[in-house]
C-alpha cells in the first residue's frame, strides 16, 4: 500500500526537552520575523511525557532563556532545591562528604521531567507546533542526493508475522526541509545516521549508564521538600561506576533511583536488583518505610560527555539532546543542555531556511553556534571526570577533585572512553552475585515493577527487539556470559527457557520500557532495538 506524504518545513523526531525546546524556539523566531514556518513534533509515546523518565533536578538556565515568564505560565517547577547531601555508603553506614561543586543545586528545581515536557508541549501547541504523540518515526527518508528529507512513521496493524492485519494502516511520510533528531539516548534512527554519515568517526565511543527509578509517596513527617541526596559506594564495588539519587519534591513524593555505568564487567550484575538492594540501606529504608511505591521505570543515559559528541550535522538533518549526548555527568543533569542544544539548532535552522529554496542542506552553523554557548564550555570542563572512574572509586575521587578544583577543567589532557559492550568478562571469570529476595514492601521483583510502568504493546505486531543472528543468544550470550540480558534488562523482557533439554531465548517484547540497555550492552551488538507501533511502551505518570 502507498504511504501518504505530508510536508513541513521542519520535522522533529522526539517530544522530549530538546525537541520541544527546538519547536518552541522555531515558532518564536517565525513569529518575530513574521515568516511562515511549519513545525511538527513526532513522539512515539502515547502522549507527551509518557516515555520521559528523569530524576530530576532541573537547572532552569535554558528555560529562562526560552520562556522567561515560565513561572507566570504555570510551568511545573514547584520545588526549589534546598539541601544538598552527598553521601558515601558502606553496607550499614553513610558518611557525608563535601558536595562536589558540580552538584551544588542552589537555584535549581526538583521536577517531574515528564510533567515539564507535558507543559512544554502545551506551550509549543499554543505557538502553532503540530505535536503528534502516538506516532513512532521508524525510518529515515533520503532524497536522490542522499540528503535526509524526513522520516516515515511505522505501519500500524501488522501482525506478529509481519502480514497486514484487518486494521492495517500504512505509515506516513513526513517530508521536511530539515529534520531534527531528538530521540534521546541511543535513538534507533540516530544510530543509523551515525553509520550512514560516519558521524562518530574520530570521536570517542558513547558510553552509557542505566538509571532505574521509583516514585514513592512517603509519610508526611519524613518529607523534606527540596532535599537532594546523592550517594556513591555500596552496593557497588570499588571498580563499578554507580550511584543513587533521592529527591523529595511536591505532595510527599520522593523520586529515588540508582544509576549503574553500563561499562560494568561482571555479567552477573543486575542493575534492577542493585536498585532493590540499595533501598535496604538504613539511610533509605528509614525514609521509605511506611510509604508506598507509585511508579517504576528505567532509561539509559549517555555518559560520554564532551569527547563522545559526534558530528552533529549532515545533509538535511541535525542531532539534538541526549541522542547526541549532551548530558553533564558530574552534574548528573542533561535537561538544560538538551534544551539548549534544541534552541541553538532551531536558531541555526531558522537562519538556514531563510533561503526559501533551501532543503536538504547541511546546517553547519549549528555546531559553530553551539561552540559559542555555555553548553560547550560546561561540557568541556567536566570531560575528564567520568573516564577517571575506570581507575576505581578512590583514585577517581582524588582525580576528580584535582581536575575540578586545581585545574578547573582545563587539564591539558583528555581521558578516553571504551565501548560498554566490550567490557563484559566471561561468566566463568566472575563471581555470581547473590541478591536478596524481594520482600514485596520495600523491595520488589521485576514483574510487579514493570506493572507500575503502565507499559503496553499491541500483542499482535512484529517483535521490536530484533536479533541479527538468532543463534547468538544461546551460543555466545548464554554460553560465554551466562545470559546477561536476563539481568541487565530492567523489565524482564529477556528470559532463557529450557525446552526439551535445550535453552532458547524468549523475548517478552510487551514488557519493554524503551530504556535501550539491550541495544547498548549486548556483547556482540546482536540485539537491534527498533520502534514498535506508535503509542506502545510505558505510560509514566509524574516521572
Amino acid at each position, binding site marked *: 500500500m502507498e504511504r*501518504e506524504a*505530508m510536508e513541513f518545513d521542519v520535522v522533529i523526531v522526539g517530544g522530549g526537552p530538546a525537541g520541544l525546546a527546538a519547536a518552541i524556539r522555531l515558532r518564536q523566531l517565525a513569529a518575530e520575523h513574521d515568516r511562515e514556518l511549519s513545525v511538527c513534533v513526532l513522539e512515539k509515546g*502515547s*502522549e507527551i*511525557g*509518557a516515555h520521559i523518565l528523569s530524576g530530576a533536578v532541573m537547572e532552569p538556565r535554558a528555560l529562562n532563556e526560552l520562556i522567561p515568564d515560565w513561572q507566570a505560565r504555570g510551568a511545573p517547577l514547584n520545588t526549589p532545591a534546598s539541601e544538598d547531601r552527598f553521601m558515601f555508603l558502606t553496607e550499614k553506614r553513610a558518611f557525608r562528604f563535601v558536595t562536589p561543586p558540580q552538584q551544588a543545586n542552589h537555584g535549581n528545581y526538583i521536577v*517531574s521531567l*515528564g*510533567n515539564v515536557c*507535558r507543559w512544554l508541549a502545551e506551550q509549543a501547541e499554543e505557538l502553532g507546533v*503540530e505535536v*503528534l504523540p*502516538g*506516532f513512532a518515526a521508524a525510518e529515515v527518508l533520503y532524497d536522490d542526493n542522499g540528503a535526509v528529507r524526513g522520516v516515515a*512513521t511505522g505501519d*500500524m*496493524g501488522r501482525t506478529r508475522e509481519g502480514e497486514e492485519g*484487518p*486494521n492495517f*494502516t500504512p505509515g*506516513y511520510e513526513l517530508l521536511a526541509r530539515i529534520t531534527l533528531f531528538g530521540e534521546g539516548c541511543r535513538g534507533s534512527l540516530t544510530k543509523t545516521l551515525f553509520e550512514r554519515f560516519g558521524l562518530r568517526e574520530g570521536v570517542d565511543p558513547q558510553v552509557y549508564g542505566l538509571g532505574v527509578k521509583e516514585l514513592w*509517596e512517603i509519610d508526611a513527617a519524613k518529607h523534606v521538600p527540596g532535599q537532594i541526596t546523592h550517594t556513591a559506594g555500596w552496593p557497588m564495588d570499588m571498580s563499578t561506576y554507580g550511584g543513587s539519587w533521592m529527591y523529595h519534591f511536591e*505532595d*510527599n513524593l520522593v523520586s529515588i533511583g540508582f544509576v549503574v555505568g553500563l561499562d560494568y564487567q561482571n555479567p552477573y550484575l543486575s542493575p534492577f536488583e542493585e536498585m532493590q538492594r540499595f533501598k535496604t540501606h538504613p539511610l533509605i529504608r528509614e525514609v521509605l518505610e511506611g510509604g508506598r511505591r*507509585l511508579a517504576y521505570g528505567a532509561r539509559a543515559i549517555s555518559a560520554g560527555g564532551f569527547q563522545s559528541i559526534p558530528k552533529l550535522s549532515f545533509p538535511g538533518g541535525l542531532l539534538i539532546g541526549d541522542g547526541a549526548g549532551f548530558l553533564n555527568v558530574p552534574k548528573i543533569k542533561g535537561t538544560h543542555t538538551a534544551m539548549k542544544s534544541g534552541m541553538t539548532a532551531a536558531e541555526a535552522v531558522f537562519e538556514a531556511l531563510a533561503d526559501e529554496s533551501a532543503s536538504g542542506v547541511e546546517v553547519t552553523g549549528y555546531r559553530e553556534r553551539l561552540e559559542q554557548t555555555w553548553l560547550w564550555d560546561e561540557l568541556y570542563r567536566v570531560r575528564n571526570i567520568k573516564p577517571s572512574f575506570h581507575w576505581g572509586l578512590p583514585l577517581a575521587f582524588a582525580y576528580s577533585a584535582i581536575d575540578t578544583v586545581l585545574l578547573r577543567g582545563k587539564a591539558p589532557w583528555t581521558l578516553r572512553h571504551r565501548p560498554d559492550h566490550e567490557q563484559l568478562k566471561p561468566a566463568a571469570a566472575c563471581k555470581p552475585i547473590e541478591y536478596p529476595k524481594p520482600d514485596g514492601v520495600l523491595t520488589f521483583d521485576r514483574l510487579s515493577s514493570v*506493572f*507500575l510502568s*503502565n*507499559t*503496553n504493546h499491541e500483542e499482535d505486531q512484529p517483535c521490536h527487539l530484533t536479533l541479527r543472528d538468532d543463534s547468538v543468544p544461546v551460543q555466545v550470550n548464554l554460553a560465554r556470559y551466562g545470559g546477561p540480558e536476563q539481568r541487565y534488562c530492567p523489565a524482564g523482557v529477556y528470559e532463557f527457557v529450557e525446552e526439551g533439554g535445550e535453552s532458547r531465548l524468549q523475548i517478552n517484547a510487551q514488557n519493554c520500557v524503551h530504556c535501550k540497555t539491550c541495544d547498548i550492552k549486548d556483547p556482540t551488538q546482536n540485539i537491534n532495538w527498533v520502534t514498535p507501533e506508535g503509542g506502545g511502551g510505558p*505510560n509514566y*505518570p*509524574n516521572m
Partner: protein
Amino acid sequence: MKILVAVKRAIDYNVKARPKADGSAVDLANVKMSMNPFDEIAVEEAIRIQEAGTASETVAVSIGPKQCQETLRTAMAMGVDRGILVETDEDVQPLAVAKLLKAVVDKEQPELVILGKQAIDDDSNQTGQMLAALLGWAQGTFAAGVELADGSLTVRREIDGGIQTLKLKMPAVVTADLRLNEPRYVKLPNIMKAKKKPLDTLAPADLGVDVAPRLSVLKVAEPPARQGGIKVPDVAALVDKLRNEAKVI
C-alpha cells in the same frame, strides 16, 4: 439521519488506577487520560454507519472538564463530523450525564444515540439505560452487532446464555459492547484536520440541568493484597480447609 455518540474522558486503560492517599478518589494527577475504550467502539460504529451511507451526520458529545476537548478531537480524527462539549468541573454522575445527554438530544434531534456500555473508570453501566428511559426511546444495550434497515434497528446482544437479537423502533439508544467492532487507527492527517472541525461548548446551566451529585463516595481503597498460597498434606485437609476456613463448600 443524524447519530449522536457520547464519549467520556477516562483514565487510560494501560494505567494502573490507584486511590489517593486519603482514600477520597482515584488519583488522577498527571495520569494519562484517554477516550473510554467502549466509547471508542461506539464512535467506530457511528462512523461505519455513516460510511455505509445510512447516516448523514455524526456528532460526538462529551461531558466534563476542558480537557475533554482532546477526547472530542480524537473522535473527530476518527471521523465524526463535529463535537459538543458540555463543560463542567463538577463530578458528574450517571443520572446527571443522562439528563445532560437528553438535553443535547432535544437540541440536536438525532435518531440514534450510541454510547459505550460503561466507562472503565467507574464501571457504572447506567447512563445509556437512564438516557433511554428519560427519552422514552427503545434501547439496545451490550450491542455486539447493529443493523439498520427500513426505520428499524436490529441489535445483537451478548447475554449469558448466548446471543439475543432485538428489533428496535427508531429513534433508539444503543450501548456498545467489546465485540461490536474493532476501532480503526487514527490517521495522522486526520488528527490535523480534526483541529479544524467545529467544536461547540455548552454549560450545564445552558441546558437547564442540575448536575448536583445524588450519590456520595464513602471510600476508595485498593483491593486486599493477595495472600500467598499454602500447601496441604492431603485431600482431607484440603476439604476441611475449603469447608471450614474458606467456607466455599
